[in-house]
């Protein structure tokens, strides 16, 4: 029976609307979501289409309810609700990304992204620190083009150029010698190979000269790398730049810092710790690399990081939490997970000192469904993940298993526990994956392929020795089933293991697996095997070299990059064969086309690899070599000089042997070696030789001593902040533009 009382009806409808209240939440929520993503929806509301569609959906929803509530217009209500549902899905899934991009702006924007806090200058006008965002109008208001290219200094030091070359394959090295890089972002943003834009000299005509500086180090940029990417559908049009900077002053900077460290017998002063801690974003990777070879340097670096994060002995839980919060804040700004880094070292410290904190913070930060920040790929989460992966907290196990039920990616963390339940979970996962439904696989091969990629990714990161044989079998099976990615899967899996610290048993097992099971060509196997410190590697490597002597030439440099004590005997045999001009493993004479064997460069590389093998057998052999002939002494001195800057502590024992040299020529060859070794002991010997009766030895030793004193003085100035790292660059010749090219200042006049 119909009730005609309008008052009651209105009242009822009012109540119905009250219940529909949360629907109003949807647009508000979009705004909130968007604001969290950074650029602010309120400024980009011009994307009316999206908002209109969403508003229409809301209206339709409300209409459908009105129709139902008002007079039972059901068919219309159902149609309206379905349309509204479709519109909502469309607006959420399709239009929201457009919404986030904002409106079609008339102005273009330049966005320079890099490590944070790099100072950006254009035509010597300070534009700000990275990440820098500047509109075209603002840029032209601030910066006026230069009519004449600026006077520049060229960094000539061969060592520096060599360092840049090795890190910048395929770049024009000439560009990387200058402090200023010419580029017009708003003119040349599309592509480097665009018509009318072909070279450095073309860029010079733009009149805009860029300079990037970080902590007193100028970063050299190549024109080819000034623009990283632009997206045609970016609104407003953004020119994204990520100049790959190379810092030529890093090497001298490091040398001076380490010089100071050596002088204090690796007990870093407070000044040193503070300085390195503050400069860690620039220096960390380099110092860490040296620290891996020299534990004393690593210890000093740790002290610097502790100083930077204010870590002391006997800290309370609250203080540790404050430290972690500070690191998380830094990571949020940096948003990069790129080990090794100060934050990774901090995580390692926290893992050893306060593991419980990582356990409690892991889910708090990851937040799961409780935060819009939640998700994988965010740097701060990845660092916490790293800590959990490296040292799984016992308190976290049950929660991780629970989360594994929703997301496979937790398996890599669960799989690192040695508990039987964890092993069972991993085994079940592997088993289910291998025996997945063949019909589904047939229907959707791409999905299977994506799943396989993810599965191999998960398995690769597991560090559970108890599961290793099964993981290997699994990866091999996946590699067989997916020939296109087979090599990638296996390489990733092996590299992940080579990067870890393996026990002797693990090393033996890995070497055996690579040599006997992995379906790689022998050359590829050799490249992996030479990096494994295992007794078995000698036999495998020797067998391969016997079959393919020419491989020695190709992998020789690996012995320097990855010194391997287990290959000492092999290196000795290889060196003997090389120096005797015979093929490795036999007395077959070398024929002319194989002249690469036995050439001085190869011998030098082998000798350097041998020097880095710190075993009694190798030391005895090299000592024998040293005393055998003058030529050997010179070769060894050259090799030590080349490797001394890399801070292998065991090389310092050569100081005593070299100090016994009596003849002038050898002493003259040894003085640069002491200069490179740069220890108080080498300084003492140089002091003795400076009193030598031979004038040449006296002069060179005094010069080396003077260099030593100069380094000490400059290191102090550097730590005190009275000079910048760029001031350490030697041989900076001023160059000026002569209308066609940069030429040394002495040959022309008219500099800017």
């Amino acid at each position: 029976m119909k009730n005609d009382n309008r008052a009651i009806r209105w009242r009822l409808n009012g109540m119905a609307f009250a219940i529909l209240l949360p629907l109003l939440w949807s647009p508000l929520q979009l705004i909130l979501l968007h604001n969290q993503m950074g650029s602010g929806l309120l400024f980009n509301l011009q994307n009316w289409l999206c908002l209109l569609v969403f508003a229409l959906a809301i209206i339709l929803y409300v209409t459908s309810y009105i129709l139902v509530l008002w007079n039972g217009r059901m068919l219309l209500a159902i149609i309206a609700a379905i349309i509204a549902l479709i519109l909502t899905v469309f607006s959420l899934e399709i239009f929201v990304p457009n919404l986030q991009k904002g409106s079609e702006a008339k102005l273009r924007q330049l966005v320079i992204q890099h490590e944070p806090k790099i100072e950006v200058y254009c035509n010597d006008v300070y534009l700000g620190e990275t990440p820098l965002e500047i509109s075209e109008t603002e840029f032209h208001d601030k910066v006026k083009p230069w009519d004449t290219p600026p006077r520049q200094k060229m960094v000539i030091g061969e060592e520096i150029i060599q360092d840049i070359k090795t890190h910048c394959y395929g770049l024009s090295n000439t560009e990387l010698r200058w402090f200023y890089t010419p580029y017009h972002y708003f003119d040349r943003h599309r592509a480097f190979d665009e018509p009318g834009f072909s070279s450095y000299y073309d860029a010079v005509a733009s009149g805009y000269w860029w300079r990037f500086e970080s902590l007193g180090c100028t970063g050299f940029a190549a024109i080819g790398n000034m623009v990283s990417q632009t997206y045609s559908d970016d609104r407003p049009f953004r020119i994204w730049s990520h100049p790959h900077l190379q810092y030529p002053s890093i090497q001298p900077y490091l040398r001076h810092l380490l010089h100071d460290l050596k002088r204090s017998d690796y007990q870093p002063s407070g000044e040193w710790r503070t300085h390195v801690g503050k400069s860690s974003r620039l220096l960390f990777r380099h110092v860490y690399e040296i620290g891996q070879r020299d534990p004393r340097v690593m210890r000093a670096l740790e002290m610097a990081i502790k100083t930077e994060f204010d870590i002391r002995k006997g800290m309370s839980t609250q203080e540790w939490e404050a430290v972690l919060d500070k690191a998380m804040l830094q990571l949020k700004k940096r948003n990069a997970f790129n080990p090794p880094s100060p934050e990774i070292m901090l995580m390692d410290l926290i893992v050893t000192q306060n593991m419980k904190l990582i356990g409690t913070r892991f889910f708090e930060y990851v937040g799961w469904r409780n935060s819009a920040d939640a998700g994988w790929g965010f740097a701060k989460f990845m660092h916490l993940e790293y800590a959990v992966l490296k040292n799984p907290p016992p308190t976290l196990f049950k929660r991780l298993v629970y989360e594994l039920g929703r997301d496979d990616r937790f398996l890599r963390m669960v799989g690192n526990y040695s508990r039987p339940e964890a092993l069972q979970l991993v085994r079940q996962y592997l088993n289910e994956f291998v025996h997945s439904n063949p019909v589904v696989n047939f229907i959707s091969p791409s999905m299977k392929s994506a799943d396989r990629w993810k599965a191999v990714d998960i398995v690769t990161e597991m560090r559970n020795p108890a599961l290793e044989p099964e993981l290997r079998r699994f990866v091999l099976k996946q590699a067989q089933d997916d020939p296109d990615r087979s090599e990638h899967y296996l390489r990733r899996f092996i590299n992940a293991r080579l990067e870890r610290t393996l026990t002797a048993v693990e090393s033996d097992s890995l070497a055996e697996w690579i040599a006997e099971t992995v379906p790689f060509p022998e050359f590829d196997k050799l490249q992996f095997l030479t990096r494994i410190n295992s007794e078995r590697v000698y036999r495998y490597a020797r067998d391969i070299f016997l079959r393919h002597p020419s491989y020695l030439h190709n992998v020789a440099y690996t012995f320097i990059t990855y010194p391997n004590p287990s290959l000492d005997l092999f290196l000795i045999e290889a060196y003997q064969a090389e120096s005797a001009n015979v093929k490795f493993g036999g007395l077959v004479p070398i024929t002319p086309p194989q002249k690469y064997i036995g050439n001085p460069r190869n011998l030098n590389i082998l000798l350097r690899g041998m020097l880095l093998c710190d075993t009694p057998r190798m030391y005895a052999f090299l000592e024998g070599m040293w005393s055998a002939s003058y030529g050997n002494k010179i070769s060894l001195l050259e090799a030590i000089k080349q490797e001394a800057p890399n801070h292998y502590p065991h090389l310092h024992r050569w100081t005593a042997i070299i100090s016994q040299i009596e003849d002038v020529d050898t002493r003259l060859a040894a003085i640069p070696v002491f200069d490179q070794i740069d220890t108080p002991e080498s300084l003492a010997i140089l002091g003795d030789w400076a009193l030598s009766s031979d004038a040449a030895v006296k002069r060179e030793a005094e010069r080396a001593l003077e260099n030593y004193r100069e380094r000490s003085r400059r290191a102090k100035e550097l730590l005190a902040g009275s000079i910048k790292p760029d001031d350490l660059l030697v041989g900076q010749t001023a160059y000026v533009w002569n209308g066609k090219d940069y030429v040394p200042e002495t040959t022309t006049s008219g500099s800017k």
Partner: protein
Amino acid sequence: MDQRRRYISIEILKIDVRKVLPYYAPFLLLTVGYVLFRKTPLGSEDWKVNLIACLQGMVVAWALFNDAAGTGAFIFSRPLSRKRLFLIRWGFGISLQLLTIVAVFVTIAIGLRSGIQMLMNSPYQPMVKWYELSVLGLIALYSILSYQIFMFLKLRLHIVSARPRAWRDLVGTWLVTWLVAHLCLRVLNVPIANGIQDYLMVVYVALVTILGTLASLYCYRHLEIET
């Protein structure tokens, strides 16, 4: 007089139990069965269990407030106020929703689920036992929300519609309830800063419960009873 009222209330409750139980029991069994035999860990994002909860809320509201012509006249002619009648039925409906929650809680907490899953060789048990209780939250929200909305819409339909039992009205009410309950919770469940969406959902369900109850009571007072 009070004793007589109490007696009548219990009798009405008995009528309601007999009326609702055939509809409610299958859903209870379905929910508990699902909880017992689901292989992977239970979680709040499990749409199947949420759907069952949503349907359960609607079915209970429909069965509870859907009197046959004779029954309606009999109940409303008892010496009880409309408000008291409504509260008896509403309370009973809410109790049934809570009963489901308790049943699921007991199934998980006493280790029944863990035991069965371990017999089925599930590698997750018993580690995840206590974390699985998170499933209770959304079951409660979905069932109570759908119960409240359906109850209101059904009672409202009795007042505003000429033929409240026509199939299209009924289907429409079901559909609208599902849309409101499901979409609202889905929309509210989108993660935002500091996890406030969890509180938003609870606040929203509390709001709907209060508003829906008041609105339903209003409708109940204005119902015209067919004789």
